[in-house]
């Protein structure tokens, strides 16, 4: 049975199917009794999680080809990114089951999962879109779903403020990005990225490069690079853990894919990449410095995310397959590491009313749950770029690529930044391993939580030590889009 074109669209179909299922569940919720509300919530959790896992499996199916009249390219690059996105979705859905720490009201749980799935579909769409309009609609679909996810946190108080700030900055910067894209359309007459790329390289006027930079703004906002990162600390700190983990992990991978897709426009021009280099250094330094004084764990992870975006952007200075594949590898490592951190956040914050989680909440973790302490250890050391985790190998490959782009002194700045970063990762580690806690009662964690954490950390260490399992495939996947 020849699936024909549909075989190329399987992961997206799975996501849409899950969305449909969730939509059906939302309709059944009508009634007010809490018993069937709870049942519907649990049903929604299961549908979302298994739908995501199914989509991830489908993403493994090798697919190569064009869809929708050449506006949708499916290949090694897009499928590997979709795999990561679906794993991110599965992770976040699993983390927000039972509305993680009761931050999302039972009534809203089906909608919550619906938005998660739609956001993932949006990002999957922008990964394969070879055409500006599809790219942009995908970007906005995932963006709006994220705004709503943040706004849905049940607790009264700051969540609405964070959501609004997130929305306002997102909306304005997407208007600016649209402005840039309209100019690109004006210059090249077509909306297909390849066509625009050809037009821009044909006569690289300042206007063309400016337009490319403007259209990148939307993606840089999602990636939380320095001037466009102001939303991140507030959103991470206040949003419910499920949404925060999705924004931190999966959405960043989507942003990386979007960046790789759009940067193919301005490949030939050093000026554009020197500006991106400047942004990279700014976000590295700002992110690391601001994180030094943080007291809230999720806010610290936000600033560290800004810094990691800086490292990533600098890696892309290499402008060749090595840089692009290193970026994806680093994105995958970052996804895994963030999921580890958020597993610890969810498990440790289980009884807490407020969505915030001070670093002192992790005190004495080595006594309360040794396995979680080990998960936190691998997560933080991976983020800090310490061997043998994938964080280290990723950083090495990224900076090697950056050096091929002639950024020797930038790497020195990145090195120094890395040392500054070690300080605040070690502060959290100190809290977990060294500081004592009054009630050493063992933490009652969910049965699967720490075990999943250990599994992911094992994967991270193995992929860190054996990058060759995955890098060659990434290299020729990336060759397709460069």
């Amino acid at each position, binding site marked *: 049975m020849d699936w024909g074109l549909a075989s190329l669209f399987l992961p997206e179909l799975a996501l849409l199917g899950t969305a449909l299922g969730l939509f059906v569940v939302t309709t059944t919720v009508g009634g007010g009794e809490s018993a069937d509300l709870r049942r519907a919530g649990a049903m929604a959790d299961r549908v979302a999680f298994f739908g995501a896992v199914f989509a991830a499996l489908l993403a493994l199916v090798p697919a190569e080809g064009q869809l929708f009249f050449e506006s949708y390219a499916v290949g090694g690059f897009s499928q590997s990114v979709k795999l990561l996105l679906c794993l991110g979705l599965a992770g976040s859905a699993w983390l927000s089951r039972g509305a993680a720490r009761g931050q999302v009201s039972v009534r809203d749980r089906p909608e919550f999962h619906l938005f998660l799935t739609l956001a993932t579909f949006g990002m999957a769409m922008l990964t394969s879109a070879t055409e500006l309009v599809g790219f942009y609609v995908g970007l906005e679909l995932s963006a709006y779903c994220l705004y709503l996810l943040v706004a849905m946190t049940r607790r009264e108080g700051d969540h609405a403020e964070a959501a609004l700030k997130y929305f306002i900055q997102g909306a304005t910067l997407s208007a600016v990005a649209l402005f840039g894209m309209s100019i690109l359309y004006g210059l090249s007459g077509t909306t297909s990225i390849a066509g625009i790329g050809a037009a821009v390289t044909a006569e690289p006027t300042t206007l063309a490069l400016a337009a490319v930079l403007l259209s990148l703004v939307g993606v840089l906002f999602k990636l939380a690079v320095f001037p466009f990162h102001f939303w991140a600390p507030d959103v991470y700190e206040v949003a419910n853990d499920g949404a925060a983990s999705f924004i931190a992990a999966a959405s960043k991978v989507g942003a990386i894919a979007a960046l790789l897709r759009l940067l193919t426009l301005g490949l030939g021009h050093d000026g554009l990449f020197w500006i991106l280099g400047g942004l990279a250094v700014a976000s590295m330094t700002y992110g690391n410095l601001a994180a030094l004084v943080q007291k809230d764990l999720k806010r610290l992870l936000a600033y560290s995310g800004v810094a990691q975006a800086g490292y990533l952007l600098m890696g892309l200075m290499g402008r060749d397959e090595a840089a692009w594949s290193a970026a994806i590898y680093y994105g995958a490592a970052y996804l895994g590491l963030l999921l580890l951190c958020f597993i610890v956040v969810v498990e440790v914050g289980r009884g807490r009313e407020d969505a915030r989680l001070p670093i002192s909440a992790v005190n004495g973790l080595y006594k309360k749950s040794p396995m979680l302490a080990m998960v936190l250890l691998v997560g933080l050391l991976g983020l800090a770029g*310490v061997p*043998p985790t994938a964080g280290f190998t990723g950083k090495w490959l990224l900076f*090697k690529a950056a*050096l091929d782009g002639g950024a*020797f002194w930038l790497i020195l700045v990145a090195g120094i930044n890395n*040392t500054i970063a070690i*300080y605040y990762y070690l502060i959290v580690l100190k809290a977990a391993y060294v500081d004592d806690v009054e009630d050493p009662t063992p933490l009652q964690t969910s049965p699967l939580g720490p075990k999943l954490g250990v599994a992911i950390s094992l994967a991270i260490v193995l992929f860190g030590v054996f990058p060759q399992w995955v890098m060659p495939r990434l290299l020729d996947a990336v060759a397709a889009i460069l």
Partner: protein
Amino acid sequence: MAWLDAHILTIILMCPVVGLGIVMLIHNGKDLLIKQVAAVSSGLSLVLSLRVWALFDASTAELQMVERVAWLPSAGINYIVGVDGLSLAMVLLTGIVFFTGVLTMWELTNRVKEYFAFTMALVAGVFGVFISQDLFFFFLFYELAVLPMYLLIAIWGSTRREFAAMKLTLFLLAGSALLFPALIGLAHYSGLNTFDMTLLAEADTDWGGMGLILFGFIYVGFGVLAGIFPFHTWSPIGHVAAPTAVSMLHAGVLMKLGAYGVLRIGMIILPEAMGSWAPVIAVLALCNILYGAFVALGQTDLKYMIGYSSVSHMGVVMLGLATMTHAGISGAIFQMFAHGIMTALFFSCVGHIYDRTHTREISRLGGLFHTMPRASTLFIIAGMAGIGVPCLASFWAEFLVFVAAVKTWPIIGILAICGLVASALFVLRVIQKTFFGPPLEAWKDLPDISNGMLPARLILAGTLLVFGIIPGLMLTNLDESVRALVAVLAG
């Protein structure tokens, strides 16, 4: 057996890693079982490192027991492991200090599982550095060796442990912040786009100005760990705060990582840059020797004294490397080995004293010779090695280095020789204050080193004596490799 010999280096590396895995699986409570696993894995690594010593063929300068696996060819990374004259002694040193370190911590009761897990990770890192011949794996193991230090000191340390742990880790990683671009720069600016050290060394590329900058980064980056003059302030604080076996591993082996890095990467791959940097290295080494000795003289805490003495002795190593002569470099490598064993012995004795008297203030200790004859004799043997008394390994090292130094830079050489007096001053001052003199009331009935804990220290003292009486053991193995290195440096 042949298979074992072919892959002996990876097996040595795997000993601590497998040990780590087993320790992780053991339940938290069973302390003794964990200690036994640690002892077996460290013992095995010691036996294997002795086997490597036996298998080593001293007549060639090339790498031996080489294992080569193409790891990630697209990025120029491959797993190459091998040992030659320069690193042979270091592997044995790590084996010995690791085994004696585990034995010294046999009476640990607080969080034993985590302690041995982190120690195993640290030692795996150190073994990895000494045997790897690929920049990527070199740096990977280098960082792996540095990071467990933080937790080892912060959890099991003593005075101001958290501050000391943080300061130590940040300082060392600041060093590696310089190394990161340098190592990648080597692969990039050589045009070969490979991290294989032997290829980079043989390619004799014309590095030009960049060579100097890269060497500067490598020297300062590794020099921070080797405790070169202006960047040494972390090491005494780190030693004082660290528990006994950790300071043994740290001062005994980790500081050699720095000097070995400068030797293996700086001097072999960038010989011309080494030529122009040598005077700077010599002057800083001289500062190390004299400055370290005089600061040690002013210390009131036993461990601070040993910490600064390590700074002083590492100065001798760097001076030896800076002379770029056969005698100088052989002396430097011999000193790396001898100082490692000596400091390990020093720290294990001080550890015993601290566990019993709970103080390391020299003013409060006194007349221990009569209450603890064994600990005192061992400390005095270590002290004598520190001073460079003949028939102990350190004498030969310092003798060769100073003779070579006088040959290449007469002024620096003569000033360095004054280091002999300076080191005598501070060691004898401590011996006289803590061990000689009337036995104090407070320390009247303290137990001496028990028979169980004695073998670890006897191994260390024995090694000092054996290499002191027969320096040929060390020098014949070094001979060919150092001759090849000197030829490369002469250019």
